[in-house]
Protein backbone atom coordinates (compact mmCIF):
# COMPACT_ATOMS: atom_id res chain seq x y z
CA UNK A 1 0.00 0.00 0.00
CA UNK A 2 2.75 2.36 1.01
CA UNK A 3 4.70 1.51 -2.07
CA UNK A 4 1.67 2.16 -4.21
CA UNK A 5 1.24 5.64 -2.76
CA UNK A 6 4.94 6.29 -3.21
CA UNK A 7 4.72 5.11 -6.78
CA UNK A 8 1.87 7.46 -7.51
CA UNK A 9 3.67 10.31 -5.78
CA UNK A 10 6.92 9.76 -7.60
CA UNK A 11 5.37 9.57 -11.02
CA UNK A 12 3.35 12.62 -10.11
CA UNK A 13 6.46 14.52 -9.12
CA UNK A 14 8.18 13.46 -12.33
CA UNK A 15 5.34 14.84 -14.39
CA UNK A 16 5.27 17.90 -12.15
CA UNK A 17 8.92 18.61 -12.90
CA UNK A 18 8.20 18.79 -16.60
CA UNK A 19 5.05 20.80 -16.02
CA UNK A 20 6.98 23.20 -13.85
CA UNK A 21 9.44 23.93 -16.61
CA UNK A 22 6.73 24.74 -19.11
CA UNK A 23 4.68 26.68 -16.57
CA UNK A 24 7.71 28.66 -15.44
CA UNK A 25 8.20 29.66 -19.05
CA UNK A 26 4.57 30.75 -19.23
CA UNK A 27 4.80 32.72 -16.01
CA UNK A 28 7.91 34.66 -16.82
CA UNK A 29 6.48 35.71 -20.17
CA UNK A 30 3.16 36.65 -18.65
CA UNK A 31 4.76 38.48 -15.78
CA UNK A 32 6.83 40.77 -17.94
CA UNK A 33 5.01 40.95 -21.24
CA UNK A 34 1.51 40.32 -19.94
CA UNK A 35 0.92 37.84 -22.72
CA UNK A 36 -0.53 34.41 -22.07
CA UNK A 37 1.47 32.35 -24.51
CA UNK A 38 -0.79 29.61 -25.84
CA UNK A 39 2.15 28.40 -27.90
CA UNK A 40 4.10 27.24 -24.85
CA UNK A 41 2.71 23.78 -25.46
CA UNK A 42 3.89 23.95 -29.03
CA UNK A 43 7.37 24.91 -27.89
CA UNK A 44 7.27 21.94 -25.57
CA UNK A 45 6.36 19.68 -28.48
CA UNK A 46 9.06 21.20 -30.66
CA UNK A 47 11.63 20.58 -27.97
CA UNK A 48 10.53 16.97 -27.81
CA UNK A 49 10.83 16.38 -31.53
CA UNK A 50 14.16 18.15 -31.90
CA UNK A 51 15.41 16.29 -28.85
CA UNK A 52 14.54 12.95 -30.38
CA UNK A 53 16.22 13.89 -33.64
CA UNK A 54 19.36 14.95 -31.84
CA UNK A 55 19.47 11.70 -29.90
CA UNK A 56 18.96 9.67 -33.06
CA UNK A 57 21.75 11.55 -34.80
CA UNK A 58 23.87 11.19 -31.71
CA UNK A 59 23.45 7.43 -31.69
CA UNK A 60 23.97 7.12 -35.40
CA UNK A 61 27.23 8.99 -35.00
CA UNK A 62 28.32 6.17 -32.76
CA UNK A 63 28.65 8.30 -29.64
CA UNK A 64 28.27 6.62 -26.25
CA UNK A 65 24.58 6.04 -25.46
CA UNK A 66 25.09 6.84 -21.79
CA UNK A 67 25.52 10.45 -22.75
CA UNK A 68 22.26 10.59 -24.68
CA UNK A 69 20.87 13.01 -22.12
CA UNK A 70 23.32 15.62 -23.33
CA UNK A 71 22.05 15.25 -26.87
CA UNK A 72 18.52 15.51 -25.58
CA UNK A 73 19.15 18.72 -23.71
CA UNK A 74 21.13 20.12 -26.60
CA UNK A 75 18.13 19.43 -28.79
CA UNK A 76 15.87 21.23 -26.40
CA UNK A 77 18.16 24.23 -26.29
CA UNK A 78 18.47 24.40 -30.05
CA UNK A 79 14.72 24.19 -30.49
CA UNK A 80 14.48 27.36 -28.44
CA UNK A 81 15.68 29.34 -31.41
CA UNK A 82 12.03 29.48 -32.37
CA UNK A 83 11.50 31.82 -29.42
CA UNK A 84 13.27 34.95 -30.65
CA UNK A 85 11.94 34.25 -34.14
CA UNK A 86 8.36 34.29 -32.90
CA UNK A 87 8.97 37.24 -30.63
CA UNK A 88 10.71 39.49 -33.13
CA UNK A 89 8.80 38.23 -36.11
CA UNK A 90 5.30 38.33 -34.75
CA UNK A 91 4.67 39.23 -31.15
CA UNK A 92 6.40 42.55 -31.06
CA UNK A 93 3.78 43.98 -33.41
CA UNK A 94 1.00 43.48 -30.94
CA UNK A 95 2.43 44.62 -27.62
CA UNK A 96 0.30 47.71 -27.60
CA UNK A 97 -2.86 45.92 -28.65
CA UNK A 98 -5.72 44.45 -26.72
CA UNK A 99 -4.97 41.23 -24.80
CA UNK A 100 -7.47 39.43 -26.96
CA UNK A 101 -5.41 39.98 -30.08
CA UNK A 102 -2.23 38.97 -28.34
CA UNK A 103 -3.86 35.72 -27.30
CA UNK A 104 -5.06 35.15 -30.85
CA UNK A 105 -1.59 35.71 -32.23
CA UNK A 106 -0.17 33.05 -29.94
CA UNK A 107 -2.96 30.79 -31.13
CA UNK A 108 -1.82 31.42 -34.69
CA UNK A 109 1.64 30.28 -33.65
CA UNK A 110 0.10 27.13 -32.20
CA UNK A 111 -1.51 26.34 -35.54
CA UNK A 112 1.64 27.04 -37.51
CA UNK A 113 3.93 25.06 -35.27
CA UNK A 114 1.57 22.11 -35.20
CA UNK A 115 1.74 21.70 -38.95
CA UNK A 116 5.40 22.66 -39.11
CA UNK A 117 6.14 19.72 -36.84
CA UNK A 118 4.00 17.50 -39.01
CA UNK A 119 5.84 18.66 -42.09
CA UNK A 120 9.25 17.87 -40.70
CA UNK A 121 8.66 14.79 -38.59
CA UNK A 122 5.45 13.30 -39.87
CA UNK A 123 2.71 11.96 -37.70
CA UNK A 124 4.02 8.73 -36.30
CA UNK A 125 5.14 8.80 -32.71
CA UNK A 126 8.87 9.00 -32.19
CA UNK A 127 10.69 7.83 -29.13
CA UNK A 128 14.12 7.22 -27.74
CA UNK A 129 13.28 3.62 -27.24
CA UNK A 130 15.15 1.71 -24.62
CA UNK A 131 17.35 4.62 -23.60
CA UNK A 132 14.85 5.43 -20.89
CA UNK A 133 16.08 2.58 -18.75
CA UNK A 134 19.70 2.93 -19.72
CA UNK A 135 20.57 4.38 -16.36
CA UNK A 136 18.85 1.52 -14.69
CA UNK A 137 16.32 1.53 -11.97
CA UNK A 138 16.49 2.01 -8.28
CA UNK A 139 14.47 0.65 -5.42
CA UNK A 140 13.26 3.26 -2.97
CA UNK A 141 11.09 2.14 -0.09
CA UNK A 142 9.75 -0.77 -2.05
CA UNK A 143 9.14 1.13 -5.27
CA UNK A 144 11.09 0.68 -8.47
CA UNK A 145 11.93 4.01 -10.05
CA UNK A 146 13.86 4.57 -13.24
CA UNK A 147 16.96 6.59 -12.48
CA UNK A 148 16.12 8.79 -15.41
CA UNK A 149 13.02 10.02 -13.59
CA UNK A 150 15.14 10.98 -10.63
CA UNK A 151 17.53 12.82 -12.91
CA UNK A 152 14.65 14.83 -14.34
CA UNK A 153 13.19 15.57 -10.93
CA UNK A 154 16.60 16.67 -9.80
CA UNK A 155 17.01 18.82 -12.86
CA UNK A 156 13.63 20.38 -12.25
CA UNK A 157 14.55 21.25 -8.69
CA UNK A 158 17.88 22.60 -9.77
CA UNK A 159 16.31 24.80 -12.41
CA UNK A 160 13.72 26.01 -9.91
CA UNK A 161 16.50 27.01 -7.55
CA UNK A 162 18.43 28.65 -10.34
CA UNK A 163 15.38 30.63 -11.41
CA UNK A 164 14.77 31.67 -7.83
CA UNK A 165 18.37 32.74 -7.50
CA UNK A 166 18.27 34.59 -10.78
CA UNK A 167 15.12 36.46 -9.91
CA UNK A 168 16.30 37.58 -6.51
CA UNK A 169 20.04 37.94 -6.82
CA UNK A 170 20.96 38.85 -10.34
CA UNK A 171 20.49 42.15 -12.09
CA UNK A 172 18.59 40.50 -14.92
CA UNK A 173 16.21 38.94 -12.46
CA UNK A 174 15.63 42.18 -10.63
CA UNK A 175 14.87 43.91 -13.89
CA UNK A 176 12.43 41.16 -14.72
CA UNK A 177 10.61 41.67 -11.47
CA UNK A 178 10.64 45.43 -11.83
CA UNK A 179 9.30 45.25 -15.37
CA UNK A 180 6.64 42.80 -14.27
CA UNK A 181 5.58 45.17 -11.55
CA UNK A 182 5.56 48.38 -13.50
CA UNK A 183 6.58 48.44 -17.12
CA UNK A 184 6.49 52.22 -17.57
CA UNK A 185 8.66 52.83 -14.57
CA UNK A 186 11.19 50.26 -15.70
CA UNK A 187 11.33 51.94 -19.07
CA UNK A 188 11.68 55.32 -17.47
CA UNK A 189 14.60 53.99 -15.49
CA UNK A 190 16.36 53.19 -18.71
CA UNK A 191 15.60 49.53 -19.22
CA UNK A 192 15.74 48.65 -22.89
CA UNK A 193 12.33 47.02 -23.12
CA UNK A 194 12.49 45.50 -26.61
CA UNK A 195 15.76 43.79 -25.76
CA UNK A 196 14.26 42.75 -22.43
CA UNK A 197 11.27 41.24 -24.15
CA UNK A 198 13.40 39.17 -26.49
CA UNK A 199 15.44 37.79 -23.63
CA UNK A 200 12.46 37.08 -21.41
CA UNK A 201 10.54 35.39 -24.19
CA UNK A 202 13.56 33.32 -25.12
CA UNK A 203 13.95 32.30 -21.50
CA UNK A 204 10.34 31.22 -21.45
CA UNK A 205 10.81 29.32 -24.68
CA UNK A 206 13.94 27.52 -23.49
CA UNK A 207 12.17 26.32 -20.38
CA UNK A 208 9.40 24.92 -22.54
CA UNK A 209 11.57 23.25 -25.16
CA UNK A 210 13.91 21.71 -22.62
CA UNK A 211 10.90 20.44 -20.70
CA UNK A 212 9.62 18.81 -23.84
CA UNK A 213 12.98 17.25 -24.60
CA UNK A 214 13.37 15.87 -21.10
CA UNK A 215 10.00 14.14 -21.07
CA UNK A 216 10.61 12.15 -24.23
CA UNK A 217 12.44 9.13 -22.90
CA UNK A 218 9.53 8.38 -20.59
CA UNK A 219 6.97 8.61 -23.36
CA UNK A 220 6.86 9.27 -27.07
CA UNK A 221 6.19 12.24 -29.27
CA UNK A 222 2.68 12.65 -30.46
CA UNK A 223 1.18 15.19 -32.79
CA UNK A 224 -1.27 16.36 -30.18
CA UNK A 225 1.19 16.64 -27.33
CA UNK A 226 1.59 20.38 -27.58
CA UNK A 227 -2.09 21.09 -27.72
CA UNK A 228 -2.85 18.83 -24.81
CA UNK A 229 -0.12 20.27 -22.69
CA UNK A 230 -1.34 23.84 -22.89
CA UNK A 231 -4.43 22.92 -20.98
CA UNK A 232 -2.39 21.31 -18.22
CA UNK A 233 0.03 24.21 -18.16
CA UNK A 234 -2.91 26.54 -17.98
CA UNK A 235 -4.24 24.58 -15.01
CA UNK A 236 -0.87 24.96 -13.30
CA UNK A 237 -0.71 28.71 -13.68
CA UNK A 238 -4.31 29.20 -12.67
CA UNK A 239 -3.83 27.19 -9.51
CA UNK A 240 -0.52 28.76 -8.76
CA UNK A 241 -1.50 32.24 -9.82
CA UNK A 242 -0.71 34.04 -13.05
CA UNK A 243 2.72 35.59 -13.02
CA UNK A 244 4.08 33.83 -9.96
CA UNK A 245 7.10 31.56 -10.10
CA UNK A 246 6.31 30.04 -6.74
CA UNK A 247 2.85 29.48 -8.10
CA UNK A 248 4.28 27.57 -11.04
CA UNK A 249 6.20 25.34 -8.64
CA UNK A 250 3.30 24.60 -6.32
CA UNK A 251 0.76 24.46 -9.12
CA UNK A 252 2.88 21.97 -11.02
CA UNK A 253 3.10 19.74 -7.97
CA UNK A 254 -0.63 19.92 -7.43
CA UNK A 255 -1.50 19.13 -11.03
CA UNK A 256 1.19 16.50 -11.44
CA UNK A 257 0.27 14.59 -8.32
CA UNK A 258 -3.47 14.92 -8.81
CA UNK A 259 -3.14 13.64 -12.33
CA UNK A 260 -1.11 10.74 -11.09
CA UNK A 261 -3.71 9.92 -8.46
CA UNK A 262 -6.47 10.13 -11.03
CA UNK A 263 -4.68 7.85 -13.48
CA UNK A 264 -4.13 5.20 -10.85
CA UNK A 265 -7.63 5.25 -9.42
CA UNK A 266 -10.13 6.44 -12.01
CA UNK A 267 -8.44 6.86 -15.38
CA UNK A 268 -11.64 8.28 -16.86
CA UNK A 269 -11.45 11.16 -14.47
CA UNK A 270 -7.92 12.14 -15.37
CA UNK A 271 -8.36 15.46 -17.05
CA UNK A 272 -11.88 15.95 -15.77
CA UNK A 273 -10.48 16.35 -12.29
CA UNK A 274 -7.93 18.87 -13.44
CA UNK A 275 -10.50 21.03 -15.21
CA UNK A 276 -12.82 20.90 -12.23
CA UNK A 277 -10.01 22.10 -10.02
CA UNK A 278 -9.21 24.88 -12.47
CA UNK A 279 -12.80 26.01 -12.45
CA UNK A 280 -12.97 25.76 -8.68
CA UNK A 281 -9.82 27.82 -8.28
CA UNK A 282 -11.00 30.44 -10.77
CA UNK A 283 -14.19 30.77 -8.83
CA UNK A 284 -12.95 30.64 -5.27
CA UNK A 285 -9.60 32.27 -5.56
CA UNK A 286 -9.17 33.75 -9.02
CA UNK A 287 -5.70 34.94 -8.27
CA UNK A 288 -4.60 31.42 -7.49
CA UNK A 289 -2.42 30.59 -4.56
CA UNK A 290 0.29 33.14 -5.19
CA UNK A 291 -1.02 35.30 -7.96
CA UNK A 292 -0.51 39.03 -8.01
CA UNK A 293 -2.53 39.92 -11.05
CA UNK A 294 -5.98 41.37 -10.69
CA UNK A 295 -8.89 39.65 -12.38
Amino acid at each position, binding site marked *: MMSHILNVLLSGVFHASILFLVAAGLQVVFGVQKI*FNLACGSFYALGAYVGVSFVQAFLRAGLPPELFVLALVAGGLCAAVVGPVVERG*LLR*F*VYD*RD*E*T*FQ*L*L*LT*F*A*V*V*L*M*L*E*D*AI*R*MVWGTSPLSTGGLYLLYGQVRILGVTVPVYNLIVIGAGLLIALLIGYMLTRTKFGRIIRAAADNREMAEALGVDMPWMYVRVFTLGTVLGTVGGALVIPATATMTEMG*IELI*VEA*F*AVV*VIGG*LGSMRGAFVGALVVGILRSIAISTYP*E*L*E*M*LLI*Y*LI*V*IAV*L*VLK*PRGLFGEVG*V
Partner: protein
Amino acid sequence: MRAAGLAVVAAVILSVPFVAGDFHTTLMLPFFAYSVILLGFNLLFGYTGLLSFGHSLFIGIGAYAAAFLTSKFGVMHLEASLLAAAAAAGLVAAPIGALCVRYVKIYFAMLTLAFGMLFYSFLLKFYFVTGGDEGMRVLQPFLLAFDLSAMPKIRFLTGPYYYYSVAVLAVATFVMWRIVSSPFGLCLRSIRDNPNKAEFLGVSVKRYRWYAFMISAVYAAVGGALLGPTTGQVDPNLAYWTHSGNIVFMTLLGGFANFFGPLVGALVFIFLQDTVMSVVPYWRFVFGAILAFLVIFAPGGLMGLLDAQVARWGEKARHVGAPT
Protein backbone atom coordinates in the same frame (compact mmCIF):
# COMPACT_ATOMS: atom_id res chain seq x y z
CA MET B 1 -28.24 49.27 -51.37
CA ARG B 2 -27.73 46.73 -48.65
CA ALA B 3 -31.08 45.12 -49.37
CA ALA B 4 -30.11 44.71 -52.99
CA GLY B 5 -26.82 43.08 -51.99
CA LEU B 6 -28.62 40.69 -49.70
CA ALA B 7 -31.09 39.81 -52.40
CA VAL B 8 -28.26 38.94 -54.77
CA VAL B 9 -26.56 36.79 -52.15
CA ALA B 10 -29.82 35.05 -51.35
CA ALA B 11 -30.46 34.35 -55.01
CA VAL B 12 -26.99 32.90 -55.42
CA ILE B 13 -27.35 30.70 -52.36
CA LEU B 14 -30.71 29.40 -53.42
CA SER B 15 -29.49 28.50 -56.87
CA VAL B 16 -26.35 26.63 -55.84
CA PRO B 17 -27.87 23.13 -55.84
CA PHE B 18 -28.91 23.68 -59.42
CA VAL B 19 -25.71 25.12 -60.82
CA ALA B 20 -22.98 23.57 -58.73
CA GLY B 21 -22.07 19.94 -58.38
CA ASP B 22 -22.97 17.74 -55.44
CA PHE B 23 -19.60 18.27 -53.81
CA HIS B 24 -19.76 22.04 -53.65
CA THR B 25 -23.37 21.97 -52.66
CA THR B 26 -22.67 19.73 -49.69
CA LEU B 27 -19.76 22.00 -48.79
CA MET B 28 -22.29 24.76 -48.24
CA LEU B 29 -24.01 22.81 -45.50
CA PRO B 30 -21.35 23.26 -42.83
CA PHE B 31 -21.24 26.88 -43.96
CA PHE B 32 -24.88 27.29 -42.99
CA ALA B 33 -24.34 25.54 -39.68
CA TYR B 34 -21.23 27.55 -38.85
CA SER B 35 -22.99 30.73 -39.88
CA VAL B 36 -25.62 30.17 -37.23
CA ILE B 37 -22.90 29.41 -34.71
CA LEU B 38 -20.95 32.50 -35.67
CA LEU B 39 -23.93 34.83 -35.48
CA GLY B 40 -24.20 33.88 -31.84
CA PHE B 41 -20.47 33.96 -31.26
CA ASN B 42 -20.10 37.43 -32.62
CA LEU B 43 -22.89 38.70 -30.43
CA LEU B 44 -20.59 37.78 -27.59
CA PHE B 45 -17.32 38.84 -29.20
CA GLY B 46 -17.94 41.67 -31.63
CA TYR B 47 -20.90 43.24 -29.87
CA THR B 48 -20.20 42.55 -26.19
CA GLY B 49 -16.43 42.32 -26.26
CA LEU B 50 -16.05 38.88 -24.67
CA LEU B 51 -13.72 36.34 -26.26
CA SER B 52 -14.78 32.80 -25.50
CA PHE B 53 -12.38 29.96 -26.19
CA GLY B 54 -14.96 27.43 -25.12
CA HIS B 55 -17.72 27.95 -27.61
CA SER B 56 -17.18 24.43 -28.85
CA LEU B 57 -18.88 23.33 -25.63
CA PHE B 58 -22.22 24.47 -26.92
CA ILE B 59 -21.59 23.30 -30.45
CA GLY B 60 -20.94 19.91 -28.95
CA ILE B 61 -24.08 20.06 -26.85
CA GLY B 62 -26.16 20.79 -29.93
CA ALA B 63 -24.51 18.16 -32.06
CA TYR B 64 -24.82 15.46 -29.43
CA ALA B 65 -28.41 16.44 -28.70
CA ALA B 66 -29.26 15.69 -32.32
CA ALA B 67 -27.27 12.45 -32.15
CA PHE B 68 -29.01 11.32 -28.98
CA LEU B 69 -32.46 12.11 -30.21
CA THR B 70 -32.09 10.46 -33.58
CA SER B 71 -30.00 7.40 -32.82
CA LYS B 72 -30.74 6.67 -29.17
CA PHE B 73 -34.30 7.80 -28.71
CA GLY B 74 -35.59 7.45 -32.23
CA VAL B 75 -36.94 10.99 -32.32
CA MET B 76 -36.26 11.78 -35.91
CA HIS B 77 -37.78 15.22 -36.25
CA LEU B 78 -35.06 17.76 -36.82
CA GLU B 79 -37.23 20.38 -35.19
CA ALA B 80 -37.11 18.34 -32.00
CA SER B 81 -33.32 18.20 -32.21
CA LEU B 82 -33.07 21.92 -32.77
CA LEU B 83 -35.35 22.65 -29.87
CA ALA B 84 -33.59 20.18 -27.62
CA ALA B 85 -30.25 21.64 -28.59
CA ALA B 86 -31.44 25.14 -27.80
CA ALA B 87 -32.96 24.10 -24.50
CA ALA B 88 -29.94 22.10 -23.41
CA ALA B 89 -27.61 24.92 -24.31
CA GLY B 90 -29.72 27.44 -22.48
CA LEU B 91 -29.82 25.27 -19.38
CA VAL B 92 -26.07 24.74 -19.37
CA ALA B 93 -25.22 28.29 -20.34
CA ALA B 94 -27.22 29.80 -17.50
CA PRO B 95 -25.02 28.69 -14.60
CA ILE B 96 -21.78 28.60 -16.58
CA GLY B 97 -22.45 32.03 -18.01
CA ALA B 98 -23.40 33.45 -14.64
CA LEU B 99 -20.01 32.30 -13.43
CA CYS B 100 -17.90 33.29 -16.38
CA VAL B 101 -19.20 36.81 -16.88
CA ARG B 102 -17.77 37.81 -13.57
CA TYR B 103 -14.38 37.66 -15.22
CA VAL B 104 -12.97 39.41 -18.22
CA LYS B 105 -10.42 39.10 -20.96
CA ILE B 106 -7.86 36.38 -20.40
CA TYR B 107 -9.64 34.90 -17.41
CA PHE B 108 -12.91 34.74 -19.29
CA ALA B 109 -11.19 33.14 -22.27
CA MET B 110 -9.46 30.60 -20.06
CA LEU B 111 -12.47 29.83 -17.94
CA THR B 112 -14.55 29.15 -21.03
CA LEU B 113 -11.72 27.05 -22.41
CA ALA B 114 -11.72 25.00 -19.21
CA PHE B 115 -15.45 24.39 -19.43
CA GLY B 116 -15.14 23.40 -23.06
CA MET B 117 -12.40 20.91 -22.26
CA LEU B 118 -14.38 19.61 -19.31
CA PHE B 119 -17.17 18.71 -21.67
CA TYR B 120 -14.69 17.23 -24.13
CA SER B 121 -13.27 14.97 -21.42
CA PHE B 122 -16.76 13.98 -20.43
CA LEU B 123 -17.63 13.08 -24.03
CA LEU B 124 -14.43 11.13 -24.39
CA LYS B 125 -14.36 9.25 -21.13
CA PHE B 126 -17.99 8.39 -20.59
CA TYR B 127 -17.96 6.25 -23.67
CA PHE B 128 -20.79 4.02 -22.52
CA VAL B 129 -23.09 7.02 -22.88
CA THR B 130 -21.43 9.06 -25.57
CA GLY B 131 -19.60 6.52 -27.64
CA GLY B 132 -16.23 7.86 -26.58
CA ASP B 133 -13.82 8.82 -29.31
CA GLU B 134 -15.86 6.98 -31.88
CA GLY B 135 -18.66 9.41 -31.34
CA MET B 136 -22.28 8.83 -32.13
CA ARG B 137 -24.27 8.49 -35.25
CA VAL B 138 -26.77 11.07 -36.37
CA LEU B 139 -29.47 9.50 -38.45
CA GLN B 140 -31.13 11.23 -41.32
CA PRO B 141 -33.80 13.33 -39.67
CA PHE B 142 -37.36 14.10 -40.71
CA LEU B 143 -37.80 17.59 -42.03
CA LEU B 144 -41.06 19.28 -41.16
CA ALA B 145 -42.51 15.85 -40.37
CA PHE B 146 -41.63 14.47 -43.79
CA ASP B 147 -39.98 11.11 -43.52
CA LEU B 148 -37.35 11.29 -46.21
CA SER B 149 -35.30 8.34 -45.06
CA ALA B 150 -36.01 6.62 -48.32
CA MET B 151 -34.06 9.31 -50.09
CA PRO B 152 -30.42 8.54 -50.75
CA LYS B 153 -28.16 10.58 -48.59
CA ILE B 154 -26.65 12.83 -51.24
CA ARG B 155 -30.00 13.72 -52.71
CA PHE B 156 -31.28 14.42 -49.22
CA LEU B 157 -28.36 16.66 -48.40
CA THR B 158 -28.29 18.61 -51.64
CA GLY B 159 -32.04 18.97 -51.78
CA PRO B 160 -34.41 19.22 -48.85
CA TYR B 161 -31.74 19.47 -46.18
CA TYR B 162 -29.96 22.23 -48.06
CA TYR B 163 -33.03 24.42 -48.18
CA TYR B 164 -34.00 23.57 -44.65
CA SER B 165 -30.59 24.76 -43.49
CA VAL B 166 -30.94 27.94 -45.50
CA ALA B 167 -34.30 28.55 -43.86
CA VAL B 168 -32.90 28.02 -40.38
CA LEU B 169 -30.04 30.37 -41.17
CA ALA B 170 -32.44 32.96 -42.54
CA VAL B 171 -34.55 32.88 -39.39
CA ALA B 172 -31.48 32.95 -37.18
CA THR B 173 -30.06 35.90 -39.11
CA PHE B 174 -33.30 37.82 -38.91
CA VAL B 175 -33.62 37.27 -35.18
CA MET B 176 -30.02 38.23 -34.52
CA TRP B 177 -30.41 41.34 -36.66
CA ARG B 178 -33.33 42.39 -34.51
CA ILE B 179 -31.34 41.71 -31.38
CA VAL B 180 -28.32 43.76 -32.33
CA SER B 181 -30.48 46.64 -33.55
CA SER B 182 -32.47 46.74 -30.35
CA PRO B 183 -31.92 48.81 -27.21
CA PHE B 184 -30.42 45.64 -25.76
CA GLY B 185 -27.90 45.56 -28.57
CA LEU B 186 -26.95 49.15 -27.83
CA CYS B 187 -26.39 48.29 -24.20
CA LEU B 188 -24.14 45.39 -25.21
CA ARG B 189 -22.03 47.66 -27.36
CA SER B 190 -21.73 50.17 -24.56
CA ILE B 191 -20.51 47.35 -22.32
CA ARG B 192 -17.97 46.38 -24.92
CA ASP B 193 -16.68 49.91 -25.31
CA ASN B 194 -16.57 50.96 -21.69
CA PRO B 195 -18.03 48.69 -19.04
CA ASN B 196 -17.27 51.15 -16.26
CA LYS B 197 -19.15 53.97 -17.89
CA ALA B 198 -21.99 51.64 -18.85
CA GLU B 199 -22.40 50.71 -15.22
CA PHE B 200 -22.56 54.37 -14.28
CA LEU B 201 -25.28 54.90 -16.81
CA GLY B 202 -27.35 52.20 -15.22
CA VAL B 203 -26.56 49.29 -17.50
CA SER B 204 -26.06 46.12 -15.49
CA VAL B 205 -22.87 44.86 -17.07
CA LYS B 206 -22.88 41.38 -15.56
CA ARG B 207 -26.50 40.70 -16.29
CA TYR B 208 -26.37 41.80 -19.90
CA ARG B 209 -23.20 39.86 -20.54
CA TRP B 210 -25.00 36.87 -19.10
CA TYR B 211 -27.92 37.34 -21.50
CA ALA B 212 -25.51 37.65 -24.43
CA PHE B 213 -23.71 34.52 -23.28
CA MET B 214 -26.89 32.50 -23.17
CA ILE B 215 -28.12 33.72 -26.53
CA SER B 216 -24.78 32.90 -28.13
CA ALA B 217 -24.85 29.46 -26.52
CA VAL B 218 -28.28 28.71 -27.96
CA TYR B 219 -27.14 29.77 -31.41
CA ALA B 220 -24.04 27.59 -31.13
CA ALA B 221 -26.12 24.58 -30.19
CA VAL B 222 -28.61 25.09 -33.00
CA GLY B 223 -25.71 25.32 -35.42
CA GLY B 224 -24.18 22.24 -33.87
CA ALA B 225 -27.40 20.33 -34.33
CA LEU B 226 -27.39 21.32 -37.98
CA LEU B 227 -23.84 20.07 -38.37
CA GLY B 228 -24.57 16.52 -37.32
CA PRO B 229 -26.70 15.31 -40.22
CA THR B 230 -24.21 16.64 -42.78
CA THR B 231 -21.71 13.94 -41.88
CA GLY B 232 -24.02 11.62 -40.05
CA GLN B 233 -21.54 11.53 -37.21
CA VAL B 234 -20.60 13.54 -34.16
CA ASP B 235 -17.46 13.06 -32.12
CA PRO B 236 -15.77 14.68 -29.14
CA ASN B 237 -13.46 16.76 -31.31
CA LEU B 238 -16.39 19.06 -31.86
CA ALA B 239 -15.84 20.16 -28.27
CA TYR B 240 -12.03 20.37 -28.36
CA TRP B 241 -10.63 23.79 -27.69
CA THR B 242 -9.00 24.12 -31.07
CA HIS B 243 -12.46 23.88 -32.60
CA SER B 244 -13.31 26.96 -30.56
CA GLY B 245 -10.15 28.46 -31.99
CA ASN B 246 -11.44 27.85 -35.52
CA ILE B 247 -14.64 29.70 -34.66
CA VAL B 248 -12.61 32.65 -33.46
CA PHE B 249 -10.51 32.49 -36.58
CA MET B 250 -13.54 32.56 -38.86
CA THR B 251 -14.87 35.58 -37.01
CA LEU B 252 -11.61 37.44 -37.29
CA LEU B 253 -11.17 36.45 -40.91
CA GLY B 254 -14.49 37.86 -41.94
CA GLY B 255 -14.41 40.79 -39.58
CA PHE B 256 -15.99 41.03 -36.17
CA ALA B 257 -17.04 44.64 -36.51
CA ASN B 258 -19.54 43.84 -39.22
CA PHE B 259 -22.78 41.94 -38.76
CA PHE B 260 -22.16 39.69 -41.76
CA GLY B 261 -18.40 39.59 -41.27
CA PRO B 262 -18.22 36.26 -39.47
CA LEU B 263 -20.43 34.65 -42.10
CA VAL B 264 -18.05 35.79 -44.78
CA GLY B 265 -15.29 34.33 -42.64
CA ALA B 266 -17.06 30.99 -42.41
CA LEU B 267 -17.53 30.80 -46.16
CA VAL B 268 -13.93 31.68 -46.89
CA PHE B 269 -12.69 29.31 -44.19
CA ILE B 270 -14.64 26.34 -45.45
CA PHE B 271 -13.76 26.78 -49.09
CA LEU B 272 -10.20 27.75 -48.34
CA GLN B 273 -9.78 24.73 -46.11
CA ASP B 274 -11.09 22.52 -48.85
CA THR B 275 -8.82 24.11 -51.44
CA VAL B 276 -5.74 24.04 -49.29
CA MET B 277 -6.34 20.48 -48.18
CA SER B 278 -6.57 19.30 -51.75
CA VAL B 279 -3.17 20.78 -52.47
CA VAL B 280 -1.32 20.12 -49.27
CA PRO B 281 -2.47 18.62 -45.97
CA TYR B 282 -1.01 21.47 -43.95
CA TRP B 283 -4.03 23.73 -43.84
CA ARG B 284 -3.36 24.62 -40.21
CA PHE B 285 -0.11 26.25 -41.13
CA VAL B 286 -1.76 28.31 -43.82
CA PHE B 287 -4.54 29.33 -41.48
CA GLY B 288 -2.13 30.12 -38.70
CA ALA B 289 -0.22 32.38 -41.04
CA ILE B 290 -3.43 34.03 -42.21
CA LEU B 291 -4.55 34.53 -38.63
CA ALA B 292 -1.21 36.07 -37.72
CA PHE B 293 -1.45 38.36 -40.72
CA LEU B 294 -4.97 39.36 -39.79
CA VAL B 295 -4.13 40.09 -36.19
CA ILE B 296 -1.14 42.22 -37.09
CA PHE B 297 -2.24 43.99 -40.22
CA ALA B 298 -5.98 43.61 -40.63
CA PRO B 299 -7.74 43.06 -37.34
CA GLY B 300 -10.97 44.17 -38.96
CA GLY B 301 -10.92 41.14 -41.20
CA LEU B 302 -12.12 40.97 -44.76
CA MET B 303 -15.16 43.13 -44.13
CA GLY B 304 -12.94 45.63 -42.39
CA LEU B 305 -10.71 45.82 -45.43
CA LEU B 306 -13.75 46.12 -47.62
CA ASP B 307 -15.20 48.92 -45.54
CA ALA B 308 -11.90 50.76 -45.63
CA GLN B 309 -11.71 50.35 -49.39
CA VAL B 310 -15.26 51.57 -49.85
CA ALA B 311 -14.49 54.56 -47.67
CA ARG B 312 -11.48 55.34 -49.83
CA TRP B 313 -13.55 55.14 -52.99
CA GLY B 314 -16.08 57.41 -51.33
CA GLU B 315 -13.36 59.93 -50.55
CA LYS B 316 -12.10 59.80 -54.10
CA ALA B 317 -15.60 60.23 -55.47
CA ARG B 318 -16.10 63.25 -53.29
CA HIS B 319 -12.90 64.80 -54.53
CA VAL B 320 -13.72 64.02 -58.11
CA GLY B 321 -17.17 65.55 -57.83
CA ALA B 322 -16.02 68.61 -55.92
CA PRO B 323 -15.62 71.85 -57.83
CA THR B 324 -12.04 73.06 -58.04
